[in-house]
């Protein structure tokens, strides 16, 4: 029996690069295996190391990885790999299970790059609006210059209730301003104790958003979050992502809030 070595990455072709901002690009990569929104790949560059990156879109024979340029590995991706290939390992993690949300009223709240891991969910319900009762996408970005997936928003607005807001506007911006939390009470929901909330973003944003969802009557067990932690191996070995008895790379990064709320680093 040959045991597959989980540490050795495979070569994946970059079929397209979508530039959102100066430092945030989506790399469309060839990949034909099974994959779910919220799962992640380790982008693995010889000489530079690895970076866990969420699947931000699933196509026919491709996955999208939306990468923010922040350091050693991601700088190298931006500078030298455009139009070529990348080494990947994965997909890892549990990901979001669309089945949990079908037939429900859904509010999906994302902050900034937090939209990446949940974008596959938005894509799904945008393409299958009849699979849910209602779908509200509420997204906050720092400023109009930080908006990701502009093209996708145009598509989403056709079938979904989309609210986009920015913390700090710039001249000429005429959209919504302020924190995502202030828009939650305005979202029409028939049965908030049956509705589903999906929340992904920076820790403070997630905390405030969840509090606000409780205020409007959401139940803990109907809220789902994705946790970002330091990761290295992605396969339950290196220990870096462990919190309490939970390995984020294996049991997460997606958690029902009844479990996720107990995770204390």
């Amino acid at each position, binding site marked *: 029996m040959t045991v597959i070595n989980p540490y050795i990455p495979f070569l994946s072709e970059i079929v397209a690069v979508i530039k959102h901002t100066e430092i945030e690009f989506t790399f469309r990569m060839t990949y034909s295996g099974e994959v779910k929104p919220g799962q992640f790949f380790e982008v693995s560059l010889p000489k530079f190391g690895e970076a866990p990156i969420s699947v931000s879109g699933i196509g026919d024979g491709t996955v999208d990885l939306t990468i923010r340029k922040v350091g050693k590995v991601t700088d190298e991706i931006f500078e030298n790999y455009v139009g070529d*290939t990348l080494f990947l390992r994965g997909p890892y993690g549990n990901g979001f299970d669309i089945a949990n949300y079908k037939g429900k009223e859904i509010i999906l709240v994302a902050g900034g790059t937090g939209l990446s891991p949940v974008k596959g969910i938005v894509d799904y319900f945008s393409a299958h609006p009849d699979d849910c009762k209602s779908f509200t996408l509420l997204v906050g970005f720092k400023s109009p210059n930080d908006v990701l997936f502009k093209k996708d928003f145009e598509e989403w607005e056709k079938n979904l209730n989309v609210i986009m807001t920015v913390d700090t506007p710039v001249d000429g911006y005429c959209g919504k301003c302020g924190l995502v939390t202030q828009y939650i009470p305005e979202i029409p929901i028939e049965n908030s104790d049956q509705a589903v909330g999906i929340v992904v973003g920076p820790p403070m944003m997630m905390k405030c958003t969840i509090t606000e969802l409780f205020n409007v009557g959401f139940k803990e067990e109907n809220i789902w979050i994705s946790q970002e932690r*330091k990761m290295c191996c992605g396969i339950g070995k290196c220990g*870096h992502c462990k919190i309490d008895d939970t390995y984020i790379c294996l049991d997460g990064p997606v958690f029902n809030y009844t479990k996720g709320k107990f995770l204390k*680093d």
Partner: protein
Amino acid sequence: MGYQTTLAKINAIFSDLSKDYVIYAPKRFVGDGTFTNIDTIRYGEITDLSEIEFAEKSNYSFKEVLLPISETLFYFTENEMKEADAPKKGAIVFLRSCDLHGLKRMDTIYLENGAVDTYYKRLRDKTKFILMGCENSFENCFCVSMGTQKSDDYDAYIKVDGNAVLVDSHWDLLDAALAGATEASVMPDSVTANNTVVTVPETVPQTLFDAPFWEDYGNRCIACGRCNFVCPTCTCFTMQDIFYTDNGKAGERRRVWASCHVDGYTDMAGGHAFRNDKGQRMRFKVMHKVNDYKRRFGTHMCIGCGRCDDVCPEYISFANCINKLNTLVNDSVKEEN
């Protein structure tokens, strides 16, 4: 099968086995210890059983045989990866009962938690474990509290007493080599009590994670990580890429031991880190060793070898910490009632 034989005979057998196995055992390295002018006892290759330090506890565990301090995973050029070769020979490891329990903890992480680790498995499959008995407990050991003072899971038990050697073999190769030796009933030496007794609290409420209790450790711990490095059940690592020349395209990816006490363990991009406070790192380690590992895998991670207490330059005692935590838990339960 139990046997009585001689040192000369058993050395001859091991000399023969060394064609296929590298033999690792605790050895004394003179003047090499944590504290000046103290010997250190750690694992090294042996060719003769008289090289083994039977009388004292080893400062480091056997884990480096299966999980080298630095291990090459693969070699790369820009477009190719090649898995590093496994050592040709297998290994024979001499170790004590607590460490043999430690092996099961390593197995759990490397073979069961998520994907099978190729590198661990290929070494593990070719390793034989030889139990060394404990006639007396050593300083800081608390194996009895952790239930690891005995083990039957060995390939052989060997006791050297001058020129006489007692063997209990579970290994056909050894049985074959010992054919004709005097049969004997051999029971491994094991201790029934330690000076250090530890009471592990059944559950620890999360409210105690922030108790002032941990601050004392925050003030004393210097985050050197030695407690992790000597621990047979600490198995964390970090990956590193090395390249051979500055502008070269070839290099290798390695994994190296990592420590949850040392800075950088939880660093993320943008300088964000979890558990900056060293007291919280102690809390994280203690909870893993005697609480959350058990909830996930069914046994405590800590096997009570006491090496972390032996090595800490700040004289922080893990055993005392557990006992104090137990008192704290009991007090908090009383307060509630």
